[in-house]
């Protein structure tokens, strides 16, 4: 269908020998008053052909022969009287071709009138007509193309955003201008509302890596009239996410959560992320540096994972049977091995074919985890994890790792993403598609530096995730500092306000100087989007996310200060049952060992019983009163006269 002609021309195509039209670029002039600007979409109608283009550069010049002529004309006085005649001046624009109709034969753009694009033109120019309408539409609103009073919705193709055709999204933008986080929050909301039913279920998992950015996605934010209008234009409901679950590790005390989301009003869907030895051991490779990764270390870790952890282990050289369930148990196991080897003296350097140096290294590294990730990793064997196998459709899972040591952050990324992949391969995650959002990608998948497990894992997702339904939404301040293949595999690229130095790098040289200049000064809420269907990147405007921003959230729900052990336990239990009296809980745990209380608390949180307090008490067990051992009188030796000594 050829779209009909509509608006009055705003320009005319010009082509000269020095500046000819090509099949992919053309130039046109406009009046000075024209609403055309960088990023505007225009159409040319001529010779039975319609050409859609996006303005990439603009030029203006007058018929002034030399600047000195202006000085002469003004008698050297810049404040002199206004020239009686306005100089002839040209507004000349360059446009990159988005689409030609008919598509064949591919020909240079003809001379003809240039018009501003309308709604229908934008859809055709960006080839959205192929996926926005029809029996099985896959359009997901990403914003509006706004120029010259026109606001046309722009859609991404879910098949190319979440697979299987292409997948992944990468966002670049400077920090602090609400580009990256806001864009992802809005896009996730749009995805959850408009993800086509025929493509199945979808959930998202976000890693909150800094501050309170993603801590209030379940709380409505304040929107202005302009934002509401944009939501209406995009046919989206401005509302916060309604199925959000937060996971955060504990602080080293094991009872206060290590997150800014500690306000009591937010406790209902905030739970601890707590892993035990088994959860860590499977991903021990993450915490080993390159020098550590050798066959010997691998063999010993495999031995521990397969033969020791979680099993009854016996060895004739060891004094007893071991059942290792926690880091504490493991350390006891290691100490027993070292004791045996020390007792053996000379030649006692190998235990069950593993050299003592390898065993010491693995003990050191694993011990390091429990120290550096204290709060995430528990010694007592109780764990609380993501709901593997029962992810909800349109569920949003936020893992707050902002307060974690970098090593522990790596561990969290590696284990969670690996588990997602495993479940998606088995098709038992609970949803068909999962979007994983990772900010600060330059930190986790840097372009240089040593190969890490996390970088390999992110690369693997970007290259193969789309076949599984595992989709990476990533963001960073400097795209140039990220592993090229990770960003290169992103089918959709979004650029927000950019740093000028970054824009001067060769990676951005395909953009016109004007586009780069606009990116360097892009206002909040505007983005440049490249999508497989769009021949050229387009600027779009999107509304504020309908959720509380991190800064607003912290003001409205100030984090509770870290509290004493007893009060923290009471608060965690009251999150399960607000009717519980804090005094009663303090009474129950008074005088009890903190480790016992912690173990009982974790078991209660994990079980989420209907009656938390009785369950907690049962886990805590009866109090064993301390006993004082009386010193018994020593038995005197029997003296005999026949003793020769």
């Amino acid at each position, binding site marked *: 269908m050829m779209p009909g002609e509509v608006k009055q021309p705003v320009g005319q195509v010009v082509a000269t020998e020095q500046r000819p039209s090509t099949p992919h670029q053309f130039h046109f002039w406009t009046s000075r008053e024209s609403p055309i600007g960088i990023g505007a979409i225009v159409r040319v109608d001529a010779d039975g052909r319609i050409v859609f283009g996006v303005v990439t550069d603009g030029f203006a*010049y007058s018929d002034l022969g030399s600047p000195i*002529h202006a000085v002469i004309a003004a008698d050297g006085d810049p404040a002199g009287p206004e020239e*009686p005649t306005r100089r002839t001046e040209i507004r000349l624009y360059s446009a990159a071709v988005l689409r030609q109709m008919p598509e064949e034969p591919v020909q240079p753009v003809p001379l003809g009138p240039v018009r501003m694009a309308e709604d229908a033109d934008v859809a055709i120019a960006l080839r959205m007509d192929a996926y926005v309408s029809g029996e099985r539409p896959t359009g997901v609103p990403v914003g509006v193309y706004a120029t010259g009073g026109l606001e046309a919705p722009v859609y991404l193709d879910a098949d190319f955003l979440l697979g299987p055709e292409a997948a992944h999204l990468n966002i670049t933008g400077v920090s602090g201008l609400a580009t990256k986080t806001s864009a992802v929050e809005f896009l996730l909301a749009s995805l959850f509302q408009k993800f086509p039913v025929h493509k199945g279920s979808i959930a998202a998992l976000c890693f909150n890596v800094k501050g309170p950015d993603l801590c209030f996605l379940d709380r409505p934010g304040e929107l202005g009239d302009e934002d509401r209008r944009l939501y209406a234009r995009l046919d989206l409901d401005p509302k916060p996410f309604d199925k959000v679950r937060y996971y955060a590790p504990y602080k080293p005390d094991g009872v206060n959560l290590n997150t800014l989301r500690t306000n009591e009003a937010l406790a209902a869907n905030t739970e601890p992320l707590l892993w035990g030895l088994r959860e860590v051991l499977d991903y021990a490779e993450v915490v080993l540096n390159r020098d550590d990764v050798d066959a010997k270390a691998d063999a010993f870790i495999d031995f521990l994972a397969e033969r020791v952890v979680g099993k009854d282990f016996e060895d004739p050289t060891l004094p007893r049977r071991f059942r290792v369930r926690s880091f504490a148990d493991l350390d006891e196991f290691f100490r027993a091995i070292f004791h045996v080897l020390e007792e053996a003296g000379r030649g006692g350097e190998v235990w069950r074919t593993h050299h003592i140096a390898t065993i010491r290294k693995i003990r050191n590294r694993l011990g390091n985890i429990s120290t550096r990730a204290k709060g995430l990793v528990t010694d007592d064997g109780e764990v609380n994890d993501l709901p593997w196998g029962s992810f909800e459709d349109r569920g949003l899972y936020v893992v707050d790792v902002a307060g974690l040591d970098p090593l522990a952050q790596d561990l969290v990324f590696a284990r969670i993403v690996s588990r997602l992949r495993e479940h998606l391969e088995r098709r038992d995650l609970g949803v068909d598609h999962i979007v994983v959002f990772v900010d600060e990608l330059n930190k986790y998948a840097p372009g240089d530096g040593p190969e890490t497990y996390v970088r390999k894992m992110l690369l693997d997702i970007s290259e193969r995730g789309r076949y599984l339904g595992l989709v990476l939404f990533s963001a960073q301040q400097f795209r140039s500092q990220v592993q090229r293949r990770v960003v290169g595999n992103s089918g959709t690229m979004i650029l927000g306000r950019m740093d000028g130095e970054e824009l001067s790098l060769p990676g951005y040289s395909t953009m016109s100087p004007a586009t780069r200049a606009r990116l360097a000064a892009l206002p909040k809420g505007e983005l440049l989007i490249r999508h497989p269907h769009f021949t050229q990147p387009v600027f779009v405007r999107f509304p504020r996310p309908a959720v509380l921003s991190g800064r607003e959230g912290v003001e409205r729900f100030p984090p509770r200060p870290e509290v004493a052990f007893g009060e923290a336990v009471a608060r965690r239990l009251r999150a399960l049952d607000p009717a519980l009296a804090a005094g009663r809980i303090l009474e129950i745990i008074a005088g009890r060992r903190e480790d016992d209380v912690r173990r009982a608390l974790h078991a209660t949180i994990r079980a989420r019983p209907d009656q938390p307090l009785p369950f907690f008490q049962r886990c805590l067990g009866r109090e064993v009163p301390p006993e004082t051992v009386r010193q018994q009188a020593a038995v005197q030796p029997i003296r005999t006269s026949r003793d020769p000594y």
Partner: protein
Amino acid sequence: MSRASATESGRETFGAAAFSELRRRLATVPGVVPATADPPASHGRADEARIVPAELIEPPPLRAQAVGPPSSWPGPVAFLDGTQRHEVVAYAGPMPLVAAEVAAAVRERVGRQARTVHSRRRQLLIGRPEALALAADALPGVQTVALAADEPPHPLRDLELARAAVDRARGELELLAGDAYRRTAGHWLVVDGSLAESPAWAADPRMLGIAKSHASLPFGGTEMVTYLHLPAGHRSSVFRPSSRRQAPVYAWGLRLWDWTGKDLFFGLIRVEAAPTEETLRMADSISRWLLAERSPLSADPRWDRLLYGIHGVEEYLRSGGGSRNGQRVDEK
């Protein structure tokens, strides 16, 4: 793309394409040989240097008088100019066939913004009647101008006659454009050149002629020195050029730019206006207005004398404005 190359490109569009088409069509005519020649005077007239004494209207002696600071005319002002170009496109025996394109336009300035309000363009084929008759079948619909055939053909003389015919054609077109504007608006109309083309123009109280050429000087002796040494921002006394018998006008010299260290004629224009008391009364204010018109400067080698408004008309016509490739076609 530089501005200069854009302008050059515009000129090519103006002449070459149309003339080449004529050559192609004439190549099919028996007895006619296509040719290429760009006569030396193709772009304008070469006036003959002479002194034609004028009659002083303001009290003698001829004086240089300061006109005061530049002051632009507050209302709408229109500018009129014409362009011409001709080339030999073929020879029928010794007789040249000359193709010409003449154009004229009026651009009106309102609130600093100039817009074309009238434009006319013609393509002509000029030659002796015998040559035109030979080409007639190949060039149906092309407007022809027959040269006088009372003397035997001579290629150089015929070329000179053709050039004069082009001059006349351009002048006629300018008159048509000016008259058309005058029928629709009563604003000041500034014409490039003399007002003597038309008695009506010469008598029009709202028309000015701006002559940049000084081949014909109105004074000799010490008066010539006074006239040619006018300081910047000064005008001469008003005089009546004696060469304008058919259409008498008042005129005065006006120095737009300081000529010291440059050519004697640098920045010197001759202003022509209706021969009325009103003109005498307004000579200073008109001069102040024209001084204001020095700015913006025209991007042209004649910038010291070429008012930007006139330059704008020239550029419009050279770029093909009013042609079939431009915005309007008034006549062919």
